[in-house]
């Protein structure tokens, strides 16, 4: 994998997690560029999704949902804790499975309707 990426790039491509402080390598083991911390899954608001280009916000973005978009990839939906903007980014193989699981289960633990109705599914 590292054959494809010059070592100078690798050295400059780590970032500290805004939430937990972990030093995160910018590339996941599968070679994809990371934008969130694999330990706490937080991201940082550095791109403006509406107008494109960099964002001034730079606040932490909390992971709120798992979604499969049209490209078929499993994506993590992030919500900026300051301005509320939403982003989606591919889930990496080494992302914290427990936090992913907690996120998936949370809505089902407090459904807006009684689940007893759906006993036959």
């Amino acid at each position, binding site marked *: 994998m590292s054959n494809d990426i010059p070592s100078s790039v690798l050295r400059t491509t780590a970032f500290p997690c805004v939430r937990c402080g972990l030093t995160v390598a910018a590339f996941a083991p599968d070679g994809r560029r990371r934008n969130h911390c694999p330990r706490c899954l937080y991201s940082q608001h550095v791109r403006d*999704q*509406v107008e494109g280009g960099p964002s001034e916000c730079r606040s932490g973005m909390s992971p*709120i*949902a*798992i*979604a*499969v*978009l*049209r490209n078929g990839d*499993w994506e993590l*939906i992030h*919500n900026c804790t300051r301005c509320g903007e*939403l*982003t*989606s980014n591919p889930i990496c*193989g080494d992302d914290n*499975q427990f936090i*992913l*699981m907690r*996120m*998936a*289960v*949370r*809505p*089902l*633990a*407090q*459904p*807006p*309707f009684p*689940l007893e*109705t*759906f006993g036959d*599914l």
Partner: protein
Amino acid sequence: MPRRKPQRRRPQRRKDVLHGPGGERGDAFRCTSCRLDVPLTAPGTAHRNHCPHCLTSLHVDGRIPGDRRETCRGRMAAVGVTARHDGEWLLIHHCLACGKLSANRIAGDDNALALLRLAMRPLAAYPPFNAQLAL
């Protein structure tokens, strides 16, 4: 009086608008996905922004929900569910035309089975979960 040649033009399609600026069909809109005619008033929300049957929405809002300042008008598919801190469910919509994401409150008459299927999807189909749940 000579009759005009019969026009071969197809009748104009009804516009798929939520709240048209001119108040088109002010009290209802037709879903761009399942074609259901949906009344605008929804139990439990100020304004309805998605179809209660298939949960599809239309990209009409800009930065602020309800501002109707977006010109995209693409179809927005419901791609996920999240729970707010108070437990209320939000639908995550993804615009199939421009990629914009938005989060919208569910309405009291949203199709519960469709909501549940969406919420179950990561647990039912996400490969790493399946591998670990099979232990």
